[in-house]
């Protein structure tokens, strides 16, 4: 059992939690992920590490309530326990030697992008962060991004905060204006990453994407997280989760990501109904 040290809502559907796991806290690097189960008989879900505090043995996770498991997790309280917590899994994001980087984050993906921006900033790298949200209410981690970035461009789909439009818009402008990034690192919905790659490809800027496919063991046993990268089968859990964006087959990844959509929708509705009944 693993203790929930702190928790808070970052916006109406995004939660931040710190889980006590000294061994993971000691090891986890930006870009790596953990797998957790909320309770006995629960499903295993992967979540990217959003930060660590080795002294307190705390691992920070940020998640959006999208299904039954994340919903159940959100109902927990500080001081309570979750059943399982294992990691750090996957390879850390390769940051060595980078001097100027664009971080492009979308929605809850920004939570995963933040530790990368922070690490780069700490290394003395120039960081330009392009972060996008659907609307003002969903904006998270603005202060943290601001502190870790030399330049922060905030976008919302509806223009209710920052500039109106998608993140690829200012990125395109910057690249056209001659911004020379060593690398673009992008984390967010698959469709966003696909368009980021389409934006950077003509400029030939190395673009790293962080993939978050369906996973079970997370240690290279089940093969559920396979992706086609450069025409070859790769496993996000041991070969990734970071990959060269120019090589990833996004359409296939999107199709595979929808494998259990009906099941998940049903499970989420069930979980919500159960909760409503309990409240009544």
């Amino acid at each position, binding site marked *: 059992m693993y203790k929930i040290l702190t928790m808070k809502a970052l916006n109406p559907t995004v939660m931040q939690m710190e889980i006590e796991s000294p*061994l*993971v806290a000691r*090891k986890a690097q930006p870009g790596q992920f953990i797998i957790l*189960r909320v309770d006995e*008989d*629960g*499903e*295993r879900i992967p979540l990217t590490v959003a930060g660590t505090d080795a002294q307190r043995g705390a691992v920070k996770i940020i998640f959006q309530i999208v299904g*039954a*498991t994340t919903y159940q997790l959100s109902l927990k309280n500080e001081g309570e326990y979750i*059943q*399982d*917590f*294992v*990691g*750090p*899994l996957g390879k850390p994001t390769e940051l060595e030697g980078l001097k100027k980087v664009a971080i492009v984050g979308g929605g809850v993906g920004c939570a995963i992008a933040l530790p990368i921006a922070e690490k780069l900033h700490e290394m003395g790298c120039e960081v330009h962060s392009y972060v996008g949200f659907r609307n003002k209410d969903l904006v998270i981690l603005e202060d943290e991004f601001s502190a870790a970035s030399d330049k922060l461009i905030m976008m919302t789909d509806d223009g209710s905060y920052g500039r109106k439009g998608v993140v690829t818009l200012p990125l395109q402008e910057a690249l056209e204006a001659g911004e020379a990034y060593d690398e673009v690192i992008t984390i967010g919905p698959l469709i966003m990453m696909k368009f980021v790659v389409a934006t950077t490809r003509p400029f030939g800027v190395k673009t790293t994407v962080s993939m978050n496919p369906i996973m*079970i*063991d997370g*240690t*290279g*046993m*089940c*093969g*559920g997280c*396979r*992706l*086609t990268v450069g025409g070859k*089968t790769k*496993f996000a859990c*041991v070969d990734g989760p970071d990959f060269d964006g120019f090589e990833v*087959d996004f359409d*296939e990844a999107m*199709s*595979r990501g*929808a*494998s*259990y*959509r009906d*099941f*998940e929708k049903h*499970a989420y509705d069930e979980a919500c109904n159960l909760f409503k009944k309990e409240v009544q």
Partner: protein
Amino acid sequence: MPNMSLKKNPMPAQEPEVRAHNFKEVALGYTAEQAIDEANRCLNCKNPVCVKGCPVNVPIPQFIKKVQEGDFEGAYQVISLTSSLPAVCGRVCPQETQCEAKCIRGIKGEPVGIGRLERFVADYHNEHATEAPVKPESNGHKVAVVGSGPAGLTCAGDLAKKGYDVTVFEAFHLAGGVLVYGIPEFRLPKAIVQKEVDTLKALGVKVETNMVIGKTVTIDELMEEFGFEAVFVGSGAGLPRFMRIPGESLRGVYSANEFLTRNNLMKAYKDNATTPILRAKKVAVVGGGNVAMDAARTALRLGADEVSIVYRRSLEELPARAEEVEHAMEEGIQFRLLNNPVEILGYNNPEDKRDPKNGTVVGMKCIKMELGEPDASGRRSPVEVPGSEFVMDVDCVIMSIGTSPNPLIKDTTAGLEVNRWGGIIVTEETGATTKPGVYAGGDAVTGAATVILAMGAGKTAAAAIDKQIMGE
């Protein structure tokens, strides 16, 4: 007087048409009368060749003699001398190629049902034993075991009995390795695995779940920081292989590992399961090993109307245990032999890109094969019959064509050498790797093999670790 019947006592089993719809164990086990009758077929040979066929050297005639006498607990104690998982071995060992293959009674008629007797004895013990195993006096030496599958559990058990302070590290949330995620309930009930793990715990073995060695903690850290004097790596086989044919990433294509893990470990077959699994109607399982049989029979129990094994060689070359093939056939699994998939076909609605069916499996194109000359392994290699392609109507394909070794431990352990296909290199007599103090065994060394071979390797390494720590 020995029982001179040429046939084994048949194993009572659930009827095929009943068991095809439930996940309960297929084989029901001998009654005491059947066990004694079967035990009486043993000639108690002076030179028991059966024992030579057993990778863990169970004293077979001695335990069978106890069964003849009706001393079932005594029989269990005899088996326990060398085997730490009798209830498991009695169920999943390929006895027909091991102990029973050597049995003298097999020359004329069927061999003694050694596996069935082992199972009976172990089940009897589990049902009747009241005394908890005695925890041996500690010798103060710490040994780490990586992986809680058959190799790891055996190694841990042998060392614990000698008084070692053993900790088993498991990556999953539950101990048992392939015994819980791979082998289905209907062949090996999980309660039996749990019982074996509990027995080890009673002997003082600690089991730490959620520990991915190579990630959470490295082998070097185990030895330098955590004070383990030796480490046994029994981390199992690794990444599933795919055929590299078009369509393998369509929705509805699984590796057998994923399909079985969802079902067995994550209990996706239960009505209120939190982990989803595709309830397909027409399933093709590609491959011919035990894992393929397990996947096919699981798909059937999940409600498929039609399940086929697609294998590129003929029935004779099927690597699965004879009993598993027989059970699968009885249950109505179709064997489409001498066929090889060349492409998996997906649904694509050109009119509607958002059609939810897009990207799902609708068929599998295969080509017919014929057997050519024997290859280096002595097996006749299959050759494509030109122009013989045809399409199978399926909505789910399960690839069960083996695995390649997991890179996690190799990549994080300096000095641990692997062979050209990624298996950890060991000295066969001891299980010692190229890194001092580190031993390995099971699928991590051999690639996908059997439970009992993994147990044999765990046993060998336990003896070598004892020698290393205690001196000659």
